[in-house]
């Protein structure tokens, strides 16, 4: 044990001193890859500050002067401001509701003792394989009859439901991992089943809540098809829909469209930069389990 401890830093020190040719090759490869990831985003960012003329006369130079006119125009004329707010409302509501309802069902499956638990699990899991496209038409006609099309509630309901399978699946795993003694103990102290759920099981499964919350939020934030079908009123559109409508073949002012793209992705990029490690690990953990 002792020898390995002292050997490790030595080896590290030696490796820092000179990189082997293979390592240099690997780094060159990775840097090349990362350029393909960063350069397109930087190009859009750069162009969004230019005027339409500049885009064609000097495509790769830096903009002559920095103005935010393009951004403010896209923000108001493209309804991106209201769209961001709508997206936020819909996603937060769907997130909160699906987490509560989903983890309640997961608790019922993982912890309560009844015969149908396994069957219920299978029933919910089939939802993961169903593509959203198949239910689009019946849902749309039904919601139109109920007056739910063109309303944010009409978006929240399907978003929340499509988030349920993954939430239930992941949370069931976490609830099953809680030791029986803890629940027994709480029971002896006189806690009822809801106290056990809210005070003991939920706080112990924080990691699971984080992972499922992240997955559902990111998924719903970027969802385009359902929102596009259900919402036709400009004031109710979500971010991906407003963006797709604003940036299209009928618009000829390129720099404003580029500004709109930047507005749409910059919040995600900022959040990602701050919490990137947590987000990547959380989403991967969710995908592994799913």
């Amino acid at each position, binding site marked *: 044990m002792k020898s390995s401890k002292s050997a490790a830093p030595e080896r590290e020190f030696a490796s820092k001193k000179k990189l082997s040719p293979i390592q240099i090759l690997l780094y060159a490869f*990775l840097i090349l890859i990362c350029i393909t990831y960063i350069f397109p985003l930087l190009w859009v960012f750069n162009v969004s500050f230019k005027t339409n003329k500049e885009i064609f006369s000097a495509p*790769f130079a830096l903009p002559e002067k920095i103005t935010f006119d393009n951004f403010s125009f896209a923000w108001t004329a493209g309804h991106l401001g209201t769209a961001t707010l709508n997206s936020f409302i819909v996603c937060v509501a769907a997130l909160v509701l699906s987490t509560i309802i989903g983890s309640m069902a997961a608790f019922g499956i993982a912890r309560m003792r009844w015969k149908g638990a396994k069957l219920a699990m299978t029933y919910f899991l089939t939802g993961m394989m169903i593509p959203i496209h198949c239910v689009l038409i*019946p849902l749309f006609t039904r919601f139109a009859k109920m007056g739910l099309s063109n309303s944010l509630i009409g978006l929240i309901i399907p978003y929340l439901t499509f988030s349920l399978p993954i939430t239930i699946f992941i949370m069931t795993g976490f609830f099953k991992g809680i030791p029986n003694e803890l629940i027994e103990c709480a029971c002896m102290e006189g806690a009822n089943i809801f106290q056990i759920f809210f005070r003991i099981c939920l706080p112990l499964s924080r990691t699971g809540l984080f992972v499922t919350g992240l997955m559902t939020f990111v998924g719903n934030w970027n969802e385009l098809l359902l929102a596009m079908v259900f919402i036709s009123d400009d004031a109710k559109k979500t971010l991906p829909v407003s963006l797709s409508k604003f940036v299209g073949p009928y618009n000829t002012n390129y720099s404003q469209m580029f500004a709109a793209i930047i507005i749409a992705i910059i919040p995600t990029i900022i959040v990602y930069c701050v919490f990137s490690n947590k987000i990547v690990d959380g*989403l991967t953990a969710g995908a*592994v389990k799913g």
Partner: protein
Amino acid sequence: MDKMLRNKKSILVFMLPAFILFTLVLFIPIVQSVYYSFCEYKGMTAPVFIGLDNYKALISDKTFGIALKNSMFFLIFSCVSQLIIGLIYAAVLTNIKAGRNLFKNIIYLPCVLSSAALGLMWMFIFSPKLGINQLLEKMGDKEPPLWLMDTKGYITLPMWVIAFVALWQYVGQSMMLYMAQISGINKSLMEASYIDGCTKVKTFRYITLPLIKPMVATAMSLNAIGSLKFFDLIFNMTEGGPNHKTEVLATHLYQQGFKYFKYGYASAIGVVLLVLCLLVTLFINKVVKTEQYEM
């Protein structure tokens, strides 16, 4: 305690909200959708049962043929390319000494961005007068390719472009899945193989690859279902054009259902999509056998 956990009323309270939502919003619509696919249903009037006519029409529909072909191309391309590229990235990233997190996070970034926005971004990059073509003109290329407007070939150029953009966007996820699995392999196994005289490449072939096989099945079925559902990028890059050459099942469904309001016909496309999703999942789980090793 047993009594409390068997209490029918509290079980009901826990299960009912999810059950009702799931049934009303997901399960009943699926059944309805299957029913509509056997109906003449144009939106204004009530659905009328017409048997298999919608499916017969699908067979003679040229655009459906293109959409099916493109979806299949997409499915195969994304499964194969994501497997290979994802594995290469994962292998490279696990073998570098510093800066692993930085590279990993950069490659993963597009996975969390809106594919609608990224689709628009790539649409501009590959548009005839902007982006890549400006770069090519600067380098002296007099007749740069039309990229997304090209219509020649069995699998047209736009499809390849879109497929590569999709690979660019989602390969981070496959990479992360493989990396998670590789980092779970016991180090002593690797060391044992080095002592037995294996090179790094050999170790990767005979130790790492067999041990990450279960993850290959997971990642592949995620890719497969994702590529069948694929909509956002295509819709924003080409809208299925030029001349329906880049139509996939999802965009065709959207066009038929919500541009021409042929609900019955679009439901039939939806049923085809659903069946494909189920078949592909079953197929992958059968073929890529998930042998469990002691790790």
